């Protein structure tokens, strides 16, 4: 009887049921879309962070920012003007440690021994600026006549007269090439920036190549400079053989070239120095604890976690993320609350219209609980219908977002707050450099989101049922005897 009565009543009040279900559906669909878009934002942010950190890194440790010295880090280039007609190419390159701040290699071991640290790997980030080009001598041109190399002027005016004219042409033509090099610990390749790239050609480093003159080149840089496996690349006079080409999983690669750490230290004249220590925590729930332990026990360091770095993300990704978590969340809550209220009021009003019906049932001996259950049952089915409709609309919305896949721009590290990751990033600007990445937004719908939607549908039904049930439970059976007006 319960289900027969429920089914017939819902069919009779189709329009009201549809209004209640649609309201709930709208709220639930919004929750699904907002939460899936938020999840997509989070994934996009993770991708951006992974491109800096590499996979598996929970935090980076860098030297604490110090007051900049008096131009100590600025590269100087010296070129000589050679013989009169020598216009041969001159070349000079400078290898600079990114951020100009280094930690002793022993710090890696110290950090590795800290409580909660599963693994720690050091790396040295370098900036190489190469300037090459040539000088050209200018030509002296005498006024009113062709260029003359000698001092003799036009005759008749006295031999002591200086020739009148000007130097034309000549000057210098130099090309500046700046690229990044990352010195990686070839014995510990599970952590560090190279993990965010895949070797697409050749191979990665062998554990035995700790001091070998071999390099892995980023595919984008390889394409630009026409580099390939088997070719060589010269850095500061040292020739490295390219053994592999890597492609970043997302966004830009962490460096243009990867070489063994020892080689990088030699090039930068930074023996036993690293710029960044990549740390993996034993328990991902304990990251904050590990961070404070390292900060406490290893003085003079700055520890940057993924969460810290996420705070430096700006650009449209950040704006969209703020929108999703701010406006989207509150819009969902507002719509859901309104939908719950409307559902409750409509159910209550439906009970008011059925006073005689419920009064009759009570007069026939139906207990209040049974009548209330009937009302709650109907409201619950309405809620579930709304849930099904909402999930369908929400999934469709999430599918559309994923299909359209709008591109968001993420700008990292521009705040220059001394984050390790920010400092690690490429570009000759050092600590204040920022990096812009384009990330395609997706809207993945997780099982938990669906479960939340179902729970909301049930909650909506129960709230509406509570309104109606309360009203029904208060009905007097004597109401059944009221005359028709």
């Amino acid at each position: 009887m319960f289900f027969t009565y429920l089914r017939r009543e819902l069919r009779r009040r189709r329009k009201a049921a549809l209004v209640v279900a649609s309201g709930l559906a709208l709220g639930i669909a919004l929750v699904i879309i907002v939460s899936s878009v938020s999840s997509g934002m989070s994934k996009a942010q993770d991708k951006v962070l992974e491109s800096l950190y590499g996979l598996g890194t929970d935090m980076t440790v860098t030297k604490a920012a110090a007051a900049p010295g008096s131009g100590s880090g600025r590269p100087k280039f010296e070129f000589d003007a050679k013989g009169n007609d020598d216009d041969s190419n001159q070349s000079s390159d400078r290898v600079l440690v990114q951020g100009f701040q280094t930690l002793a290699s022993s710090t890696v071991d110290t950090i590795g021994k800290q409580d909660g640290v599963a693994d720690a790997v050091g790396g040295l980030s370098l900036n190489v600026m190469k300037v090459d080009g040539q000088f050209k001598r200018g030509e002296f041109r005498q006024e009113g006549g062709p260029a003359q190399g000698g001092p003799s002027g036009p005759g008749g005016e006295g031999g002591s007269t200086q020739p009148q004219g000007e130097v034309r042409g000549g000057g210098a033509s130099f090309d500046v090439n700046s690229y990044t090099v990352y010195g990686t610990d070839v014995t510990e390749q599970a952590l560090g920036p190279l993990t965010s790239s895949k070797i697409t050609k050749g191979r990665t480093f062998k554990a035995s190549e700790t001091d070998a003159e071999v390099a892995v080149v980023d595919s984008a840089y390889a394409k630009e400079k026409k580099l390939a496996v088997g070719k060589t690349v010269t850095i500061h006079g040292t020739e490295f053989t390219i053994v592999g080409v890597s492609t970043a999983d997302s966004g830009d690669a962490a460096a243009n070239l990867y070489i063994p750490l020892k080689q990088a230290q030699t090039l930068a004249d930074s023996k036993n120095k690293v710029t960044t220590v990549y740390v993996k925590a034993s328990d991902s729930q304990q990251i904050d604890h590990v961070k404070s332990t390292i900060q406490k026990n290893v003085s003079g360091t700055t520890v940057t976690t993924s969460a810290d770095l996420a705070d430096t993300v700006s650009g449209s990704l950040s704006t969209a993320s703020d929108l999703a978590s701010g406006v989207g969340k509150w819009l969902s809550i507002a719509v859901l609350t309104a939908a719950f209220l409307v559902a409750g009021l409509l159910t209550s009003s439906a009970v008011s219209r059925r006073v005689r019906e419920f009064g009759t049932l009570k007069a026939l001996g139906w207990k209040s609980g049974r009548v209330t259950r009937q009302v709650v049952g109907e409201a619950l089915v309405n809620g579930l219908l709304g849930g099904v409709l909402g999930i369908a609309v929400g999934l469709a919305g999430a599918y559309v977002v994923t299909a359209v896949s709008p591109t968001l721009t993420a700008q990292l590290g521009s705040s220059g707050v001394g984050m390790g990751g920010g400092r690690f990033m490429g570009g000759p600007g050092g600590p204040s450099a920022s990096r812009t990445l384009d990330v395609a937004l997706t809207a993945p719908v997780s099982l938990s989101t669906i479960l939340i939607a179902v729970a909301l549908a049930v909650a909506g039904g129960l709230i509406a049922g509570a309104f109606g049930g309360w009203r029904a439970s208060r009905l007097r059976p004597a109401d059944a005897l009221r005359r028709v007006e």
Partner: protein
Amino acid sequence: MYTLRDVTKRYTRGKTTVHALDGVDLTIEDGGRLVIQGPTGGGKSTLLQMLGGLDRPTSGSVELDGVDLAKLSEARLTTVRAQNIGFVFQSFNLIPTLTAQENVETALVPLGGKAAERRRRAAEALDSVGLGERLGHLPGEMSGGQQQRVAIARALVKQPKVLLADEPTGNLDESMRDEVMEVLETMWKEHGLTFIMVTHDSAIARRAPRLATIRKGRVTITENAAA
């Protein structure tokens, strides 16, 4: 048997107090038939509500077979209604979305039992009021007289001791009125019920062996030996 002693029912609305029932004393024997008549607002429906355990008196007692309905808990009162009292209403009060058979079944739901047994008894009750062919019809598909017969079947399917009818012919035309009254009288005779009916219809009232006239909350009993 019903025994009402000094039953008073007052309704207070703002500063106005209405004495719907004012010191009613009444006895109704088992198997008896009583017709209640009186002007609108005289207290007829209030008296019926007291007899049916749908409302409680402000003071006095309403005993059914020695049990004071005024003092029973809501749950016990609901059980008494479910087991012993059948109601027939002026507006039929059928559930519009349920078929005739399902409507009759609603009276058996509080008594428990299997659905198949409920269906069988409901079909039998409808057959007894001449609607054996209309089991699957919705109220909207039936005439007023047929709907009231469904309501009578619903009231009687649980074999109650008492049948209370509130203006059962009030919404029917003359031919249907006779049809319904015939069914009610037949059922009263066949089932040995205590049958109490409120009516405005003097023709029906004249056919009753006992008439209770209620004015301003006070009851006067008239015996009709000719009926």
